[in-house]
């Protein structure tokens, strides 16, 4: 601690070294998402390649399951990336490419599950639980207010009023 504070020069050198290290880390982390896509897979047309990347990021790798095929190093992910690019080169629209893959692997390959009859519980479940909680809270609060009105805030009886007056007078 004292050593670091002792000289401005030393700190300057340290700062420079830190800068290089940080720069290196930044450069590495910026490069890492592209590591799975091999150079030989990249399409010559940047527009098509951009679409291919976007589609690949939506498709689940079936081997690693929680990575997209764009992220995954699995051989099957590479095959699917090449397939996506082939379909695009053949002139398919993005939707057509997605359909091509889901026809073979089902909705499971979609990292964003579609909204349909079989996924109603998945999409609406959380809102149903929220609504249930809201209804429960409403009933609870209303019940408490009702109970308070009847038992706790009823006017004092004549006897209670007399005892209260007596206590208050004693305090003076």
């Amino acid at each position, binding site marked *: 601690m004292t050593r670091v504070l002792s000289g401005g020069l030393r700190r300057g050198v340290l700062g420079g070294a830190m800068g290089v290290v940080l720069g290196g880390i930044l450069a590495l982390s910026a490069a890492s998402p592209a590591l799975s896509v091999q150079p030989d897979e990249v399409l010559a047309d940047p527009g098509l390649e951009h679409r291919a990347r976007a589609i690949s990021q939506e498709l689940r790798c*079936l*081997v690693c*399951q929680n990575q997209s095929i764009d992220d995954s190093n699995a*051989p*099957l992910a590479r*095959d*699917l990336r090449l*397939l996506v690019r082939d379909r695009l080169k053949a002139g398919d629209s993005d939707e057509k490419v997605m359909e091509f893959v*889901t*026809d*073979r*692997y*089902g*909705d*499971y390959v979609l990292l964003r599950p579609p909204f349909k009859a079989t996924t109603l519980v998945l999409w609406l479940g959380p809102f149903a639980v929220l609504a249930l909680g809201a209804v429960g809270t409403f009933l609870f609060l209303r019940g408490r207010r009702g109970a308070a009105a009847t038992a706790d805030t009823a006017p004092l009886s004549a006897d209670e009023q007399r005892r209260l007056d007596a206590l208050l007078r004693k305090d003076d």
Partner: protein
Amino acid sequence: MRRLLYLLPFLLFIGVGVAFYLGFERDPRDIPSALIDKPAPVFELPPIEGLPASAGLSSARLTGDVTLVNVFASWCIPCKAEHPVITRLSREKGVTVFGINYKDKPEDARTWLSRNGDPYAAIGADQDGRVSIDWGVYGVPESYLIDRQGRIRFKHVGPLTPEVIDQQILPMVKHLRQG
């Protein structure tokens, strides 16, 4: 009555806990096939290079009788484990078994078949794995039961075991042969 209401969150919690616990029993690798009850993909695969008396495999061969299509590779350890089971299914139970040799080197596949035996009526070599993608293959071994009209009726992911053969495959074969 009121006390029961206070128990409700606790009971809900128990319910959710049991549901999640049962979830542990499920195999996340077992993904339902999108191709069940759909026609098998149209394909044409060449034979394994250098394998004598082999004509490859095409979708035309999958109609007529109930057949099993088995995706395998010489580099796949569970494939070796299921191989005797498939051999028994083909030689003793009289079910025609076709093979799709997935991303294999021809010489490796040939050595593997001569060492372990070749129970397949025909084998197609899928070198680049494209045809297997059409089948929805995501890991070898995988097996598909095809009915007489050439539709996929059942898929098994992972090595076939005698239990799967006896309890699932053979009853379905019997049922599909009648239909």
